[in-house]
């Protein structure tokens, strides 16, 4: 470790950055080339077919207000930032519910074999139902597109969470249980000191799968039935013939989905440093 003067910090920081860049040049340059080529192909394709706006057109048409101010608000017209937030809010509620219920159910059926055997066939069938197929039922129950969207997120995200948690509990090494038995840990102590920490890696696998599915589901649900959210924005833009906005929204969806996945991954690595 070296002692640095205040003036030395930026220069050493810069040199660190340049070292980093040198080391990872390939990793940075390759995606840039990939993107460039894709944009070029897209531009050529749209120039020839005229079916879609090319990348240049998209940026031109959506520059103001959608790109430069994501959070503008004019009556019913809202910026993509607001739309994304509305979708994320639904996801947050639905996904949190799914996580809580999913982990609880997963622990339960993981720990009690007969419970697992009782619900497994049913869950396997329900699990394969596509998210949108739930929409009519959700609307019938909640009579409102808001809670219905939340329900769809819930019902989509919960299965991987349940199953991965259950596997985690089932796969818990006998050793840990023996330690708990020998120390005579009480139920609560066992749950919080042994069971929960030991299933963290499995749980986060489920949570990571769940968030991806939830994000897929919400966009579709909002497109069918909604008055806010990024899915609604896409459908609305399509109806008003603005494909450039649709394309921009797609870009938003992709980036947000990617970030959500990374976020959960970050939490997972934060919580389970043992792996």
């Amino acid at each position: 470790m070296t002692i640095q003067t205040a003036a030395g910090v930026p220069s050493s920081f810069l040199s660190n950055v340049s070292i980093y860049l040198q080391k990872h040049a390939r990793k940075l340059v390759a995606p840039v080339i990939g993107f460039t080529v894709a944009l070029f192909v897209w531009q050529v394709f749209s120039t020839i077919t005229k079916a879609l706006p090319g990348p240049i057109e998209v940026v031109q048409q959506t520059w103001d207000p959608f790109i430069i101010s994501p959070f503008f608000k004019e009556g019913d017209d809202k910026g993509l930032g607001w739309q994304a937030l509305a979708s994320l809010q639904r996801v947050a509620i639905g996904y949190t519910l799914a996580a809580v219920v999913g982990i609880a159910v997963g622990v339960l059926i993981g720990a009690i074999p007969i419970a697992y055997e009782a619900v497994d066939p049913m869950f396997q069938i329900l699990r394969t139902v596509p998210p949108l197929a739930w929409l009519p039922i959700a609307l019938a129950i909640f009579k409102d597109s808001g809670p219905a969207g939340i329900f769809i997120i819930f019902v989509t995200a919960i299965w991987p969470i349940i199953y991965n948690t259950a596997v985690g509990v089932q796969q818990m090494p006998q050793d840990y249980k023996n330690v708990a038995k020998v120390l005579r840990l009480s139920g609560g102590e066992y749950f919080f000191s042994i069971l929960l920490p030991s299933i963290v890696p499995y749980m986060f696998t489920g949570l990571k799968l769940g968030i991806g599915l939830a994000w897929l589901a919400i966009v579709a649900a909002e497109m069918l039935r909604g008055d806010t959210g990024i899915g609604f924005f896409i459908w609305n833009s399509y109806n008003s013939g603005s494909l450039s906005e649709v394309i921009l929204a797609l870009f938003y969806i992709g980036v947000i989905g990617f970030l959500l996945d990374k976020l959960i991954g970050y939490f997972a690595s934060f919580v389970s440093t043992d792996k």
Partner: protein
Amino acid sequence: MSFFVEVDHVDRIFDLANGGQYIALKNIELKMQQGEFVSLVGHSGCGKSTLLNIMAGLDQPTNGGVVLEGREVTQPGPDRMVVFQNYSLLPWLTVYQNIELAVNKVMSDLPVAERQSIIDRHIDLVGLRNAVHKKPNELSGGMKQRVAIARALAIRPKLLLLDEPFGALDALTRGNLQDQLMRICEESKITCVMVTHDVDEALLLSDRIVMMTNGPEAQIGQILHVPMQHPRHRLEVVNHPSYYTLRNEMIYFLNQQKREKKRKSKKVVAIARHGLEKVNLDIGFVPLTDCAPLMVAKEMGFFAKHGLEEVTLSREPSWKAILEGVASNRLDAAQMVAGMPLAMTVGFNDSPPLPMVISLVLSRNGNAITLDKDIYDQGVRSLEDFAALVKQPANESNESKSHTLGIVHSTSMHNLMLRYWLASGGIDPDQDVNLAVIPPAQMVANLQSNNIDGYCAGEPWNSRAVHEGLGVVMATDLDIWAGHPEKVLGVREDWVNQYPQTYLALVKALMEACEYCDDRRNREEILALLCKPEYVGSIPEYTRPGFIDAYNYGRGEVPRSLLRFNQFYVDRSNYPQQIESLWILTQLARWGITPFPKNWVEVLQRIHRLDVYREAAQELDFPIAEPDRLPFALFDEIMFNPDDPLAYLNQFAIAQPIQVKEINLDSMATVAA
């Protein structure tokens, strides 16, 4: 007397998926004192871990129970902490937190500061101060196991249970941890039960070693007491006079269990052929020069000639293995030391009489008494000198060390001749020296490591000590009792009754082999066979003396030509004289090995099936020997009168209290394992 831990008639039966049952443990009974260290040793699948789990309360016995300090064990608890084979640390907790979890739970009534000091003390105890905040996956296997041990010790268990604690570690780490565990156990007087595969580990740490037989229905096969004092040090333990004896005992037990497993897996069926009831025979021998007749009978085709086409010679590690092999019917027959069938018939070592049959003496002579070269260099040239050395009172100059001599089995001629020889010089073999039972092949190694000061054994083990400059031959049996019966063919009486024609064929084949062995023209060829690893596997240089070349006593003299050093056939060698066996019976009684049979005439007639000998000799057209009843004497010229063995026995000044007992052979005749 109440015990700290009692395992009381524990059975453990598992129900199998197919509706059957697997009896893992059968009637396990073990009592432990407080502060005792007990190891459980056995082959995989012998149920030792199951027993440990039952003691921990992690598994329940089907019958019986475990009592700790007067209370029955029904569930796991921190008073019986377990150190698991795979450490069982919680990977998401640091070293400190792993120990803390246990301490906080078990010692919740102590103030926080005190708990912290307990944790810190135990971390220091296992030397993990530098790794306190590391998680298990950052630690090596040895460090993990140290954490597990610290965790176990921190909660002050009454009983510490260790399941192969060092099995997964490299040798160096294992050694260090064994030393640490030993020190901790000695300091804190913890009662321990450890499951292990490692013979040396068990000897180093344990007060008692419980050796378990193979499952199913595993039982305690044998319990060894390790007499070494605490605190122990590795080197002192290894150099302790009984270390190798105990180690051999364990290895022998484990090997025997391994063979038993093999034997169970292949079902032996008697193959009848050529008018013989059984042609597939397993015959035991001990790697010594005088196993030559058995080897020759197989290699030169004498067995095959007499129809015994599938003879397997089983190389046994010790005479004890021979005895148990024949007693358990694992071996059909065996080369035995002359006293063994007699002692087995009379019953010794707490085992009931097992009638045996002798129809053939396989060899005579062939032994010698070897003393450590160091003792010879101290000026010991004769029995008188040795007696003076042994009886010399302890003073500063001779570190008051008692002398230990090796014998190969308590019923062997080596033991009886050595004792006779010592006693004739005024040395009481039970008072003035220690006699340790060591397999012949391990005598030289024990002599070299100063575990013993001498031994009486067969060749090539005396000549090897001489050849390597480790020992000096004080006497051969030609100097003590020339022409004594040395090895006999030993078989169970019920075996002979079941396979009479086979037995006759066996005697005939071996008789011819013995004749072949005594033809000196064949000796070079036999020597080459003996030196093969499947027989003796010795080097020709020290197998030749006595067998082919002149015999070197190692005293710087010209080697002596002893033509009858290995006597297999000449001079009616093969005829089992009852009077010689009678002399052996007197000596077995003299040293308290067996009682003297009051009905000795009946016992000897029963053992000596001379009719088989006669029939074999007749059919081979060999000269037929006749029983000899003339009194004879050993080198000390004390006459042995076969008509009054008790008078002979009673005139010895040096002897154990003699027990005379009527041996009822008929009640035992039908006993078959």
